[in-house]
């Protein structure tokens, strides 16, 4: 059930109706819990046992951790929880991949059958993990109610594709009254609308072009492949950012606040900054629970580099069981390491002060953008051969079909204008979301967006990219 489907419209109308009728916070939490399980079960009801099992396992071990009398017992409870969550993730997501690679290595032909990947498993296992690790580190109070904890893990707006919400951000919201107000409704609806513009009008409009380009890169000219490179950059950004905004908007309508997940990543001037702006909830999760657990930057430069690379490799693998994702993670890990070395060296030099700031920042931005776009090639390619071919033809393509779809150019131009305004005149975008949508500027923007939907809604809507992760 994706947010732009008819099923979701009906489902959400029923949830809103029930929330409006039931006034008590406990009643509303019960409605949200049932709704979240219906939402998840809509895809495959058998996996309700999985999400309920992981949540309960994590909560019970959290209780054991809190009640443990010794540090050793606390550690055991924490590790049991981590092993359980990661074990489930490893089995559903990586078992086939592991067996395939072992078969390749030793020449065997062992098969464990096709294991169906449960939607959103990467997201809800990470949320459960963060709860137990934060409890172990003493950063949060335990959640004493299993039902509330089940709702925290399964809250439907962010269940299948994030943002990854931490217990410290969400559980306190369950302790207070659920505010179901007109202001929340207007704000949430506008955030949802902005997300829908990104997902449906931009990402879904460029998706058919990108799909065809990656299906057969050898057919197209270098110019078309460069356009495809930029097109996929905006597709994956608008797809994911748009879906995150829709989740944030829906949660807001229901009276909850979810963390920001994207902050214009393509304006970054370094790869480190890129990761502070791209999929923020994942990158901060990886930083806090993996990078720091590995030792962070405490063991000197070489260990810092190692930790960065391991974190990004595993971050790449988190996206899917494929060597392409590992390569993408390795590229980003390598880039972060290079950036760290560069930053250490350049800070000791005097010449940067003599270079005009605009040139310095412009070069840094262009290099970061180029790297992040090129790194999407292995991420999007169905195989290593396609990655190689795409990269080769970007540079050496001779001939091929020139295809420049105007709708892709318009989407690209719109995203560029949006970024330029957001950087140089941010006040120009601050009129939305607002609690007074009938004021002239937001009203015109909303009517304009609805007209754009009416006239440019793509005939085919592609599934949300991050569902597969």
């Amino acid at each position, binding site marked *: 059930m994706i947010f732009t489907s*008819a099923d979701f419209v009906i489902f959400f109308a029923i949830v809103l109706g029930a929330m409006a009728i039931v006034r008590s916070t406990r009643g509303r939490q019960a409605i949200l819990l049932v709704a979240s399980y219906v939402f998840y079960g809509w895809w495959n009801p058998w996996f309700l046992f999985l999400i309920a099992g992981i949540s309960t396992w994590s909560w019970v071990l959290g209780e054991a951790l809190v009640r443990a009398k010794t540090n050793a017992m606390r550690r055991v409870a924490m590790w049991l929880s981590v092993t359980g969550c990661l074990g489930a993730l490893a089995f559903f997501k990586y078992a086939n991949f592991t067996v395939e690679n072992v078969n390749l290595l030793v020449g065997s032909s062992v098969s464990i059958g096709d294991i169906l990947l449960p939607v959103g498993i990467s997201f809800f296992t990470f949320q459960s993990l963060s709860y137990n690790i934060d409890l172990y580190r003493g950063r949060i109070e335990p959640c004493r109610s299993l039902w509330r904890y089940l709702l925290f893990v399964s809250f439907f707006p962010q269940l299948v594709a994030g943002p990854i919400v931490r217990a410290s951000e969400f559980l306190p919201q369950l302790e207070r009254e659920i505010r179901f107000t007109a202001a929340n409704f207007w704000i949430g609806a506008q955030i949802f609308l902005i997300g829908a513009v990104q997902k449906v009008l931009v990402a879904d409009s460029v998706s058919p072009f990108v799909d065809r380009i990656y299906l057969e890169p050898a*057919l197209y000219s270098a110019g078309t492949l460069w356009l495809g490179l930029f097109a996929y950059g905006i597709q994956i950004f608008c797809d994911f950012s748009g879906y995150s905004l829709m989740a944030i908007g829906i949660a807001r309508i229901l009276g909850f606040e979810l963390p920001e997940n994207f902050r214009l990543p393509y304006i970054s001037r370094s790869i480190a900054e890129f990761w502070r702006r791209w999929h923020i909830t994942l990158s901060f999760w990886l930083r806090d629970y993996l990078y720091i657990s590995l030792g962070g930057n405490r063991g000197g430069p070489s260990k810092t580099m190692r930790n960065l690379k391991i974190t990004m490799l595993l971050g790449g693998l988190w996206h899917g069981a494929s060597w392409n994702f590992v390569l993408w993670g390795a590229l980003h890990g390598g880039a972060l390491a290079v950036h760290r070395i560069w930053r250490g060296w350049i800070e000791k030099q005097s010449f940067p002060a003599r270079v005009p700031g605009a040139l310095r920042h412009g070069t840094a931005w262009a290099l970061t953008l180029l790297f992040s776009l090129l790194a999407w090639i292995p991420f999007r390619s169905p195989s290593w051969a396609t990655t190689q071919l795409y990269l080769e033809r970007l540079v050496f393509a001779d001939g091929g*079909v020139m*295809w420049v779809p*105007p709708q892709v150019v318009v989407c690209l131009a719109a995203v560029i204008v949006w970024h330029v305004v957001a950087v140089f005149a941010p006040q120009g975008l601050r009129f939305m979301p607002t609690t007074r949508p009938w004021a002239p500027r937001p009203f015109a923007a909303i009517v304009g967006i609805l*007209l754009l939907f009416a*006239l440019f*809604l793509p*005939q085919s809507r592609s599934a949300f990219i991050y569902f597969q992760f």
Partner: protein
Amino acid sequence: MRAVGTCLALTLGLLCVAEFGTRTFIGSPSNAVFHPVLGSTQLPNRMSVNGRAGFSRFMTNAHGLNDEDPSPDAAQRVVVLGDSFVRAIEVDRAQNFTSLVEQRLTGVEVMNTGVAGFNPTLSAVAFRELPESYAAQLVVLVVNAEDVTDMQNDGFELVRDPLGAVVDITYVRHPPGALRWKLAPILRRSAVVTDVLRRFNAPVREFVARFRAAATFRPAEPPVKVEAPPRLSDADLADATEFVITGIGERAEVVVLFVPLATFHAGARTVFDPRSEHARAVFGAAAQRAGVPFLDAGPALAQVYADTGEPPVGFHNVTIGVGHLNAHGHEAVAKLLAHELEPRLQRAGR
């Protein structure tokens, strides 16, 4: 009150901008006119814009066709019958294959009478209804793979004599009271409404079906789709086409031109759609039995792709390599057709 007025003014202003933008870049208001047998025809003498696939601005003639009116001074005339492949609103009129054949054959008027959605049986009806000014020495019936599906869905019935030969075709008569025709006065005035209804027709139907299914706790579609057997056999389709060709042949010499569906790949490789092979067999058999030439544009389209590296179908604003003929495709088809028609027209008295 002032806020309401401002909101109304803003909405109206934005609607006007949308109407202007749609008419200029996307498409014109509906031109459709109800026809009991053909389903619909097009309004005469209307300027239209097509920006949905390719881009063109064109004025329909006095019979709603994408061509000039027939000239009384033409020494010879060729009428080309077919569907959207012939109507060719994706390219400028001067670039479509009927115009290009006309340029190649001096003194011959080539009339484009293609209408989107037509199949050979409907084209035959439309041909019968054309006025005397369209009288031609030669008729080119253009067929493609979609025509097989269209004929299956069209609902016409074959009337056979006791020996099994087709003696007539009975057509389905469309009801004039359909919602589409009730909304026609609005659709003819607003490009935005036309475009929105066209785009939202299928999603709204799907939404309603899913809503009904959800309300009654039933799945919207059966879990396993059972493929219904085709309404007409290949022999029926060939018989119907042969009957159509024979009927047209009573008024003019006929040539059947087959335009296959194909996809175009790296390494100058052209892959013909399996449906095209089927259609080629059906229409080829019909042409052979009717004793008329059957021209297959497939090799010409594959050759132009191999020679130029430019796929002969598809457009920048949809997909290159899939869909209707583009300027390269029209050029290839025109060359093939002109080569076939020239000696026939010479024999017919040039």
